[in-house]
């Protein structure tokens, strides 16, 4: 099982992360507050830099294989877009929510969700998002988005969601 936190042991990555963190100067108070920025406008009419822009045009979530916290190739593309967007709009602080599917025990899934959130944050940090703009939280298997008893739902629930402006749900 490959673990993304191993990235943090690469001195180059740590140096890059620190440099960006020092240069970041994120203003966490300057959060979006108009209806458009909060993603309440029509689809396709997303204001650049808005929550809706992030969700629709960038993609706010990535998915994982069973019991894995490895960042898949498709997830890397999403996180690369997230990292670019977050560097273009440096006012946002984010919370990475880690989730698990229902096919595990409650306690293990809390830890697995945390591992997925940490792996996602490490990846974003390695792509230049300052560590001090990012928090993580695990919801384990307690907050599924898809409800059914087969893999079509489980694969959607094994996810990490990048939430702008802190833990929302």
């Amino acid at each position, binding site marked *: 099982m490959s673990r993304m936190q191993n990235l943090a042991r690469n001195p180059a990555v740590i140096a890059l992360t620190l440099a960006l963190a020092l240069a970041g100067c994120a203003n966490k108070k300057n959060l979006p507050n108009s209806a458009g920025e909060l993603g309440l406008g029509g689809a396709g009419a997303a204001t650049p830099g808005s929550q809706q822009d992030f969700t629709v045009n960038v993609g706010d979530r990535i998915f994982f294989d069973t019991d894995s916290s490895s960042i898949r190739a498709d997830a890397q593309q999403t996180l690369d877009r997230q990292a670019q967007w977050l560097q273009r709009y440096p006012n946002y602080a984010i919370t990475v929510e880690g989730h698990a599917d229902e096919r595990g025990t*409650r306690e293990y899934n809390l830890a697995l969700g945390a591992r997925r959130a940490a*792996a996602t944050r490490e990846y974003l940090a390695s792509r230049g998002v300052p560590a001090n703009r990012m928090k993580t939280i695990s919801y384990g298997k307690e907050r599924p988005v898809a409800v059914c008893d087969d893999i079509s739902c489980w694969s959607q629930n094994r996810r990490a969601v990048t939430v702008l402006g802190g833990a929302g749900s």
Partner: protein
Amino acid sequence: MMKRSFIRLVIALAGMAVMFAAPAEARVEININKGNVEPLPIAITDFLSNNELGPQISQVVAADLKRSGLFAPIDRQAFIEKIADPNRAPRFEDWKVINAQALVTGRVTREGDGRLRAEFRLWDTFAGQQMTGQQFYTQPENWRRVAHIIADAIYKQITGEEGYFDTRVVFVSESGPKTARQRQLAIMDQDGFNVRTLTDARNIVLTPRFSPSRQEVTYMSFEGNQPRVYLLQLETGQREVVGNFPGMTFSPRFSPDGQKVIMSLQQEGNSNIYTMDLRSRTTTRLTSTQAIDTSPSYSPDGTRIAFESDRGGRPQIYVMNADGSGQTRISFGDGSYSTPVWSPRGDLIAFTKQSGGKFSIGVMKTDGSGERILTTGFHNEGPTWAPNGRVLMFFRQAAGSGGPQLYSIDLTGYNEQLIKTPSYASDPAWSPLLE
């Protein structure tokens, strides 16, 4: 709220009962160490009273004994003798002819000070002898507890083991759609009655566990979007965070002396096991891996700890000494093993097993040998032991169902029973015997 004054019970052996008690000669007994026990036919007569309480107490006693799987209460319609004086020997022939091997008689009266007085006698019909007789005083609102205490006394007399009916279960009460499920801590009697919620529905709450020594529960809450372990005083409702850890704390459980909480602390992608001493507030780290170590559970003598770790790739059960030394994997079957819980008797560890797309509840010896699966299905999880180590409770979510429900099952794998709750329920934790 649970109050000590409510649960104060004066327990006294009646003089006559002691005089006539001759358990050594009684023939009625159940060898519960065998597998599938033939339940013992027992006649439980309505306790005499001038109101509904007598029959109600008898019904609760009968329901407890029946649910244990070890007793078969006989239909009242078959009774021949109508008990007029529960202190006099019954007509044993009338009870033998309907094959009642044991007979319970009793009376409920109201004392001058308003207290309830409940007395019962257990008779061995074939030996023609009284086996035991006891009386209890309590407040009238405690009538169900008196019934459970009487059922425990009968269970102990006939099986030779402590009962478990005068106990409670704390659990997570679940309502609303799965995508926005609301969860509240709740407590109930072991038979599903007297359900009371302990927390509001604003925050996700999980994994409540009873203190072995106090009216106290440890659990995990997402309050303030900061998931961590709390203590809850049942009598006052007072809550406090356990420790000041730099990450998510979860999967808490008390030490057998009630003085420590053992739990997982998550930092980055790893989770390791820590204890916090509730008096000195000192924390001790017990495991140190780049893996997920969780679900710690002490042996009843406090010298060892079972836990779950995926350090070998998949979740498996490990055992270590209480200081963290000697970490040894004990589960080697197909699939993965989670949520180890040490039996109150010390000889077994219950677990959740995932294999072949199914979830099972099972038990194994503390060295990992002798694995026995008690129930298997789409999703069974989170066993907890009755204080006598005979019965387990767990939660099950059937495929296609809207949510989980609680079940109990005998250690032998027989006698699975649904525990009815007002809403969906998960994460049961059995209390010690009440005092």
